[in-house]
Each structure stands twice: as C-alpha cells, then as structure tokens.
C-alpha cells in the first residue's frame, strides 16, 4: 500500500487537503446561492468532519512512508520559488509527531464545534484554513515559507475569536493578533538578516551553516533575541503571556483547543528548530534567563491559577505553567530535557485540549464558565465526572497518564544543569496538584445545590466520540511513553548535538 504512494508529495497533500476542502465549501455556498438553512449547515459540518478525517488518514499514510529511524528531513519536497525563497517541505521525527497531533485533534475540534449555530460555513472554512497553516508550520523547510505559515495562522484565529467568541471577544482578538504580530515581525527582520549572511533560506542549509561556520556570536545574541521575541510570545512565557488567558477565555471551545494544543507548540517547535541549532552560543548565553523565566512561569502561573474563578482561565494559566516545563527542558539542552519537552508538548496538546473540551461540554449546557456556578456534577453526570477526573490527573502529571513522563524528564534534564531550577519546578508540580484538584472538587464533588443544574444531562453520543480517542491517547502514551520517546529520539539527538557545538 505505502509503495503505491512512494513518489507522491505527501506533505503537500496533507497540508493543503484542508484548504482544498475549504474551497469546496466556499464553492458549495456560491452554487447554492449563499442561503443558509439547517440542512445546509448540517451538510457543511459533516463535510468538514469528513475532510479533516481524510486529512488525518493522509497524515497516517505519510507516517507509514516515514522511516522512524532515519535522520534528517524525510518526504522532502523542494520547488524553487522567487526572491531566493523556495517551497521546501520535509519532516523529521519532531515535525512528524506534531503534524500527527494536529491532524488527530482537528476532527475532534470539528465534532466539538457541532454546537456552533452562527455562520456555520464561514466558521468551518476558517477552521480548515487554520489547519492547513498549522500543518504547514511544522512541515516548512524554508524560513520564509515557515514564516508565511507561522504568521498566516493569525488571520483565521483572529476572526474565529472575534466572531464566535465570548463577551470581550473583540478585545481578546486584537490583543492576540497584535501581541503575536509584534514578536513575529522582529523575527522577520532576523530571518532577513540570516538569509543575507548565510545566503540561503533553507532551514537545513542554515543549520549546516551554523554548525560549520556559525553566525558571529555577537550577532547571534540579537538574532536569538528577535526569534525569542516571537517564540516567547507564542509559547507563551512569563511575562509576555497575558494575551493567552484573554484569548482562551473568549475563544469558542474548539479554537481554545487548537490554541492550547497546537498553536502554543509552535513556540516550542521554533526554539527546537531555530534557536538551539542555529544560535548555540547565544542559547548557552541566555540559558539562565530562560531558566529563570521558566521557573517564574511555573510557580507564578500555578499560584495565579489557584485564584481563578473562571474554569477556562484556570486551565489557561495551567497551560502557561506547563509551557514553563517545556522551555526549561528545551534549554537544559540535554537528551532528557529535550525528549521531555517534546513529550510534554504532545501530552499537553492532548490533555489541555481535552480539558478545554470538558469545559465546552458544560458551557454548551449552562453558558457559563464560572467555577462557583457548578458543584456536584458527579451526581448528574457520572461519566463526564470520570472523564474530567482522568484529564485533571493528566494535567497534574499523575504517573500512568501522559502528563507524567514529560514533567519528570524535563526536571531530570534541568537537574543535570542546575539543581535549583529543577527544585523550583518541582514546587510547581505540587502547586499544580493543588489548583487542579481544587477545581475538580468544586466542580464535580459536593452537593448539587444550584437548581439550574438539576436537569443537566450527561455526555451524548457525539461527545463520547470526541472524548474516546483522547482518553486512549492519554492512557496509551502514559503507560508506554517509549512509543513516543523512541520515535523522537533521532531528531532529539540531532538537536542536542547541534546545541553542544556552542560555547558553554
């Protein structure tokens, strides 16, 4: 079967399938005269689901053509473009796992978006375009192409938050867009400078250039800072994280899921793909800074999360804390640290995505996210309570869930570099248990006092279908983390080797 597709541009197919689907929906809208009705909306929902499932299947096909032990970029495509840039695609183990995460989560997001009633066709079109751009970020092997995908994702996200979001959605959409854009444009100037110096925009060539000749260490500092401006905002790291809680709270459920699960990973991916291998000297130089910011993020965001009254905001702050583990692991720069960070990114994608879906379930029914509104849900929604419990545990990092291996590995990695940093992060683990379990107690346990909750219904079939894959994924990679770790080892080792080339 896989031989059949050997010569195909699989990555382009995976990347642009959703965009083609979006075009199909647009055409259907035009040909039907643009009239919206219930039947049409349902058709669009179903069509979108099918497109995303086909995309997932295509990504699995690409995965079957992928050599897990191979080094470097595979499934590569390269077409010269203009102005020195080229359309270069390719994946290594790191990219491949993030692509799979994206294609795996998007159909679930579409399922979770079934309750969207307003401008359904526009919503689905934007979501599909967003998927194309997200996959593209992880596949792009040319800096300009990377930037196009990286920043293009802002457009659909801006509209998704602004149109289908909560009450302060316009404010949140602007904040999200402008914060991220400012970081990105500084990165663009740095990208332009790199191309000017190295004479190429190909990411592999640039990495080779950095390894063989290296950018001037003084210049590296500036380049690193410009990239940092972009990735730190995207990640988001303390103190430039403030757009995240706003965006999360106001975004519709599925956009929250995508934001937490995939868009945040672009920051970590960027650090791993650009900062460490291309500016190893500067990365060494700035490691203390990143460690300090990471620990502050972990401890401080956990404490802030504890005080939240809005479920989504609480989970958003817990995301900031978890991303602190990721940056800590990345800049530990050893195999454990980076493996842990990669694992944590994938796990956080699944777990935080699932948690936002859990919020979405009760929000769809009650239209509020206030913690105090809920309580005693376990009496009316036992299945929901059990699922929410599982993902809460995943968020805390309980062994047996996917949350554990990532946290422990990043801490082991950081411990080898700086024991105090690991100690600070460990403090964060305790705090995370405190806020997550408190949230769970307040929402699920206790007596069902609020009369409005008296008739709340448990999960319906669609929600079941949404959660089952996530539950399986959490448990499988929680119990057998080696599935992921063995897979990502080759790309991790390459990054570690490149980083070790820099001055300590």
């Amino acid at each position, binding site marked *: 079967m896989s031989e059949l597709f050997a010569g195909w541009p699989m990555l382009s197919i995976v990347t642009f399938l959703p965009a083609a689907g979006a075009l199909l929906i647009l055409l259907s*809208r*035009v040909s039907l005269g*643009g009239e919206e009705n219930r039947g049409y909306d349902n058709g669009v929902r179903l069509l979108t689901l099918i497109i995303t499932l086909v995309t997932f299947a295509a990504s699995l096909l690409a995965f079957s053509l992928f050599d897990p032990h191979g080094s470097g970029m595979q499934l590569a495509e390269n077409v*010269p*473009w*203009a*102005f020195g840039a080229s359309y270069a695609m390719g994946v290594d183990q790191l990219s491949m796992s993030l692509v799979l995460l994206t294609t795996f989560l998007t159909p679930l997001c579409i399922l979770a978006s079934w309750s969207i009633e307003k*401008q359904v*066709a*526009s919503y689905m079109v934007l979501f599909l375009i967003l998927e194309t*751009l997200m996959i593209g970020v992880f596949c792009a092997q040319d800096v*300009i192409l990377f*930037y*196009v*995908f990286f*920043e*293009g994702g*802002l*457009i659909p996200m*801006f*509209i998704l938050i*602004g*149109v289908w979001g909560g009450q302060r*959605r*316009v404010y949140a*959409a*602007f904040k999200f*867009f*402008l914060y991220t*854009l*400012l970081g990105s*444009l*500084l990165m*663009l*100037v740095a990208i*332009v*400078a790199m*191309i*000017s110096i190295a004479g190429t925009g190909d990411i592999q060539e640039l990495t080779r250039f950095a390894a063989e000749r290296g950018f001037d260490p003084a210049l590296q500092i500036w380049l690193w800072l410009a990239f940092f401006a972009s990735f730190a905002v995207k990640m988001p790291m303390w103190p430039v994280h403030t757009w995240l809680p706003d965006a999360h709270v106001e975004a519709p459920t599925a956009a929250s899921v995508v934001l937490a699960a995939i868009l945040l990973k672009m920051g970590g991916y960027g650090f791993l793909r650009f900062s460490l291998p291309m500016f190893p000297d500067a990365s060494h130089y700035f490691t203390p800074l990143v460690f300090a910011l990471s620990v502050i993020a972990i401890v401080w965001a956990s404490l802030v999360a504890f005080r939240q009254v809005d479920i989504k905001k609480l989970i958003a702050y817990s995301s900031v804390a978890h991303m602190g583990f990721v940056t800590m692991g990345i800049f530990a720069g050893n195999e454990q640290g980076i493996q842990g960070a990669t694992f944590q990114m994938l796990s956080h994608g699944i777990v935080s995505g699932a948690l936002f879906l859990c919020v979405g379930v009760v929000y769809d029914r009650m239209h509020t996210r206030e913690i105090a509104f809920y309580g005693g849900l376990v009496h009316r929604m036992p299945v929901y309570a059990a699922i929410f419990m599982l993902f809460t545990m995943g968020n805390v990092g309980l062994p047996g869930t996917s949350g554990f291996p990532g946290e422990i590995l990043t801490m082991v990695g950081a411990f080898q570099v700086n024991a105090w940093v690991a100690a600070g992060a460990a403090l964060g683990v305790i705090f995370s248990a405190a806020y997550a379990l408190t949230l769970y107690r307040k929402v699920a346990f206790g007596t069902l006092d609020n009369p409005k909750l008296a008739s709340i219904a448990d999960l319906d079939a669609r929600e079941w279908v949404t959660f089952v894959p996530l539950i399986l994924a959490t448990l499988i990679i929680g119990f057998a983390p080696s599935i992921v770790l063995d897979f990502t080892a080759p790309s991790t080792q390459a990054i570690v080797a490149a980083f070790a080339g820099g001055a300590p």
Partner: protein
Amino acid sequence: MSAPMLDLTRSLPFAQAELLLAGFALVGVLLGAWSNARAFGLISGLGVAALLAAGVLALTGAPLAPVEIFQGALVSDGVGSVAKALIAFAAAATLLLGAEHFSSTGEKKFEFPVLVALAVLGMFVMVSARDLIALYVGVELQSLAAYVLAAWRRDDARSSEAGLKYFVLSAISSGLLLFGSSFVYGFTGSIRFDAIAAAVSEGGGGVGLTFGLVLMLCALAFKMSAAPFHMWTPDVYEGAPTPVTAFFAAAPKVAAIALMARVLYEPFAGLTAQWQQVVAALAAISMVWGSLAALLQTNLKRLMAYSSIGNIGFALMGLVAGPEQGPVSALVYMMLYLPANIGVFALILALRRDGVAVDTVADLAGMAQRRPWMAALFTMLLFSIAGIPPFAGFIGKLLVFRAAVDAGFVWLAVVGGIAAVVGAAYYLRLLASIWFAPPTGQLAPASGVNLMTATFAAALSFPILVLLLGAIENWTQAAVRMWL
C-alpha cells in the same frame, strides 16, 4: 534631413505610448465638446482602451538597451517601461471604476477620462525624464490634471476645498523643485542627468549641490505624500470624489517612486551617502506617522490616505538600499500594493448602506453576515495591504525589509516592523467592523463592474499569484540591471 529632424523621426517609435495618450486626449476633448454628456460612456471606454494599449505598448516597445530620445530629454528603458505599464494599468482600473461611478451618480462629464489620460501622460514623462526640464514638465502636467480632478465636484464645498488646497500646497512644492533644480544646475553647469552625474563623481558641486538635492527630495516627497510632507493628503483624499481618490492613491504613487529612483540613482548616485540619510528619515517618519495617525481615523478615505502614507514609507525603505536591490524592491512593492489598494477602493465604491455610499468605518458593520463574499474579498485585500502572509503584500514587505537589512539599515527595518504592527491595528479595526459588529440596515453592492474589479484585485493579491512571483522578479531585475 537636418539633425533635429532626424532625432525626431528616430525618437517617435520609442514614444508610441505617449503619442497614443496625447492623441486620445485631443480626440476625447473634441468628441466631448461636440456631444457633451452623451459620449461620456464612449470616451471613458476609449480612455480605458487607450490606457491599456499604452501599458502594453510601453512593455512591448521597451528597447534592449536604454535609448535617449528627443535630444536626450527623455530615455526609453526597462525601468521606465515597467513603471509606465504599472501606471497605465492602475489608471485604467481606476478610470473604469470612476466611469461606472459617475454614470450611476449622473455626473457624466467627459473631462474625467481626458484628464486622467493627461495626468498619465505627465507621469510617463516623469518616469522617463533624463533632464531637469523634462522632469519638471512631467511633474507639472501630472499635477495640473490632478488639481482639476480633485476639484471635480465644483458645486461641492469639500471637493473645491480639496482642489484648492492641493493646488496651493503643490505649487509651493513645485517652487521648491525648481529652486532645488536651479541650485543643481548652478553648481554642476548642466540640466542633463548624465552630465550632473559626471560632475558629482568628479567631486564638483559641494554644499550647494547637496542643498539643491535636498530641496528636490523634499518636493518629490511632497508629490508622493511622504511624511512630513503629507499634510495635504488626508484632506484631498477625503474631499475629492471617491473615484478620483482611488486614482490618486494608485498611479501617481508609482510615478513618484520611479521618478525618485531615477533622481537618486542617475544624477545623484555619487551622493548616495548624503541622500540615504534623507530618504531613510522620510521612510521612517512616513511609516510611523502613517500608521499612528491612521489609528484615530473613522472616515474610510482619510484612513486610506494615512495607509498610503505608511505604504509609501515602506517603498522608500526599499529605495534606500542602493543599486539593484533598492529599485527592484521598491517597484515590486508598488506592484503588489497597488492591486490591493485599487481593490479596496472598488469595494468602497461598490458598497451602499441604505442606498448611500459608505463613508465611515462603522458603515461596514456586519458585512460578513450580510455579504460574506464581499467581506472575504475585503479581508484578503486588507491583509495584503497590511503585509500579512500568505498574501502578496507580505512579499513586498519582505523584499523592502531585505533590501534595508542588506544595505545595513537594520534600524530602519526594525522601525518598519513596529510600524507594520501599529498599521495592522487599524486594518484590524476595519476588519472588526466587517466581521464582529452586528449588522444594521441594508448593505448592498451597487454595481457589478466594481465588484468584478475588486474580485480581480483580490485574486491578484492571493497566494496563487505567488507562483508568478518568479516571473515578476526576473522581469523587474532585468529591467533594473539594464538601467544601472
């Protein structure tokens, strides 16, 4: 045959496009005077055809090596052809929009297409000028036509005010241009660009020459509405009828940028260190002020005026870079910016809220729900102007950033990056009105032609066009190489 006669017969084949436009202007005036309003449609149609043909002729008639014509007053070369084609196509599009609009409002005055053609003829002379006199004549021909166009609605106070304001301020800048030219002539002894260049490279001229250069740059900055010489722009844009505004925002900008490139890289190539500072400052101030001031605007046309000031700043950032990369990036920037800009004006012209032309940002409210297709077009065009990928405008921004960084103007690129973020904020305000605000009243397109133009412009700013970028790049680069 005598030598001047010989020169004339030799020159005419290289001036086909100009002759065509001049011929159309004369025929148009005669036709119009004879038939008045009845022939408005015919003359406009002829005008569009003449402009399109002039654009094609400029491209096909481009010689393989620069040719001096009319005794060295003008030059026919690749850069001029590229700029002329761009000017002619942009003017044709805006003339089409205008004809449609004025037909629907009943203002069928035949002078409109004629004046547009005359302005374009002036621009053609500007971009192929090879001496100071030709430069001045081109600028004035363009400006005179533009004053009349700005005051088009002569019964309307705002339009008359716009025309008068434009005329007074522009006359001052023309004075500056002449004053600066006289310095240049006085200190180098010639009005010919090549002779000036030779004098400059021999180190002649001194402070007086630099003074003349700065005065000329100020005058040109005024014509292209670069800050801090932009004061007239918002008022004129707001006061002039919308089709005229669309015209002002497109073709003259290209002409001004191309002329600026000529002046900087031909006679004053030897003074690069001096003018780089001035142009970099103009670029920085335009980018920053254009985007900051736009934040406060509620009127669509004023907003687009500040947007054009900011965008001229970006094009100037490209020009700073020095030979080859400078002109290439600035020209490609304009090439990618213009269609989006014309598209936005086409949409503004096409939209009616409760039967009245849209005027403010708030008038666009709820477009995404009432007219999703137009909203999508608007979104693509605005993101292209804002330079957000994957739209074509991004490539333009990328190129000027690259040109600036390569030339060592990293600070300018950083300023540009920050200005682009501020700029994005006001484009987002428009988009917020389109997408997020609840719909009120009736929002309907008035005409099909405008919508089609907008669709076409959006298609041009769409990533598919990116496939053509390779061709555009080679083409512009070849043109610039031949020139320098």
